[in-house]
């Protein structure tokens, strides 16, 4: 099982790399540099010569290649989970991840063949984040820390703290909505609709409105709301659950990440959407989401099936259901 966890971690890294590659495709305007799909200039995808990976093709075809690797790794993870994972809900999650990556590849193809319609491109960006969340979740669920159900009694104070449970549950949802708003802004060409930063047309509120300005402004307000929620979550953890380092570490990481992320957002505007800065903003956004998700899942640890009280169902070998699980994961 340890190897399975490390495999899931590897897939997390590969998925983040895929998000970076996808970000570079959009940031460099290379989304249509390969007009066909699933072939590449009539070549079978894996037979396309490296020497022809020039200009925008480097980003678009490179994105497709990394996506293929992630797809194959996901198949491997799903099979591994199916054969070795005793928890049915984790096995199901593996199949959902596989379905998500297949749908994601199909969306990528559709958006190329239909010249990057905003709705499809935003869906492609949004599903990328969901897939990333699924893989991060699987890495967490297969980790030794998560499987150590003997320590669950330590979770009781958090379980009884309705405030932290609500904060930590709302945070990943808010970050995801913020990412969707950002993706809509990005794919509808509204990234520079408000040209100054940190002010908005020299003030705090736009003096004129249209769709581009509204979506851009919503993204900035969303950043503010996310930062406030992160600080509130950290503050509450420090005040009431100081002993839970497994919660404090991601909370502190979120504070650092959101500072970097807001800085990158401003830099993206001031640099006129420099490709590397813009892509870094996308990548850090995904990292914020993943970190918020890990924190949210850990705080909601008591809600998962393997964290339930002993049911004392006798097993054929005499073990209880939960202790059988422990034995199987050891």
């Amino acid at each position, binding site marked *: 099982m340890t190897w399975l966890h490390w495999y899931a971690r590897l897939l997390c890294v590969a998925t983040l790399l895929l998000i970076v590659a996808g970000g570079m495709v959009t940031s460099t305007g290379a989304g249509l540099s390969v*007009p066909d799909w699933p072939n590449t200039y009539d070549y079978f995808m894996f037979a396309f010569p490296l020497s022809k990976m020039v*200009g925008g093709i480097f980003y678009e075809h490179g994105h497709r290649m990394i996506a293929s690797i992630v797809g194959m790794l996901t198949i491997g993870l799903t099979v591994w989970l199916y054969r070795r994972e005793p928890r049915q809900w984790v096995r199901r999650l593996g199949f959902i991840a596989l379905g998500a990556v297949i749908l994601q590849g199909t969306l990528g193809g559709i958006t190329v063949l239909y010249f990057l319609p905003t709705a499809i491109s935003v869906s492609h960006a949004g599903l990328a984040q969901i897939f990333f969340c699924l893989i991060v979740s699987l890495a967490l669920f297969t980790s030794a820390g998560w499987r150590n159900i003997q320590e669950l009694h330590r979770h009781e104070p958090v379980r009884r703290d309705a405030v932290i449970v609500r904060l930590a549950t709302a945070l990943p949802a808010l970050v995801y909505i913020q990412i969707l708003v950002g993706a809509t802004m990005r794919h509808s060409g509204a990234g520079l609709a408000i040209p100054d930063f940190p002010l908005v047309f020299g003030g705090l509120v736009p003096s004129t409105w249209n769709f581009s300005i509204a979506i851009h402004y919503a993204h900035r307000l969303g950043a503010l709301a996310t930062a406030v929620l992160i600080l509130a979550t950290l503050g509450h953890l420090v005040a009431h659950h100081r002993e839970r380092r497994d919660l404090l570490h991601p909370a502190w990481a979120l504070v650092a990440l959101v500072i970097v992320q807001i800085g990158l957002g401003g830099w993206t505007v001031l640099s006129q959407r420099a490709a590397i800065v813009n892509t870094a903003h996308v990548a850090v956004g995904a990292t914020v989401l993943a970190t918020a998700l890990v924190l949210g899942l850990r705080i909601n640890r008591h809600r998962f099936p393997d964290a339930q009280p002993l049911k004392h169902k006798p097993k054929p070998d005499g073990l209880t259901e939960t202790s059988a699980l422990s034995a199987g994961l050891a």
Partner: protein
Amino acid sequence: MQQRSLWTVFSVLVIATAVACGGGEDSNDSTESAPAAAAAATVDPATAGNLSGMVMFEGELPAAEELMMNSDPVCAMNATNTMSGTYVGSDGHLGNVFVYVKEGLDGYSFPEPTEPVRLNQEGCRYTPHVLGVRVGQTLQIVNSDPTLHNIHATPAANAEFNMGQPVQGMEFEQSFDQVEVMVPFKCDVHGWMNSYLGVLDHPYFAVTAQDGMFDISTLPPGDYVIEAWHEALGTQTQNVTVTTGGTAEVSFTFTIPS
């Protein structure tokens, strides 16, 4: 129960993705629809006149931007002209301006063009940078470069297309069924490559040379609205009267928009 909650969370996230999708399509107010019906009258060359003129630029013409072609070694090695085609001209004259009869030709029909218009990809640039075709006329797009290009047209009134030409010497033909000024072309492989195509339902258009001059011949006598279009400087229109056997003159002067 907890299991159900987990599935519910992921279902909500998927639905949220779908619901959040949407966005604005860019509008383009420079497009026109084709006249509904062709007229019966034809142009009599014996009674026709001509139009000639000049497009000028007031002030100092912005320096042509040098194109960075190093993302494709073939382009970097083979390109003979690495300067942008946006601002072309000298001594106050402006090239690459599309000049055409915008109004005044109602009631005429014109012979169908038989020769194709050629758009070449050469030295990792489009040649010509600005051109015109008739509705229905064949546009022949050629890749003369030893590297691959995609040809991505982004019209508003006509159908968008994106074709790959991975091999030197490849060509394909395309035509347009709607009047549109202008149809942008770009190569997404080489981000600096762009071109503009005017699609008209009559033959009275021209593109200014580097000296800013243009000529439009065999215009039937009458009153016309002439428009000059530049990719960065916008459009200007003027009224002009063409008389039998005469040559009407018109000039346009562009400035950098404030």
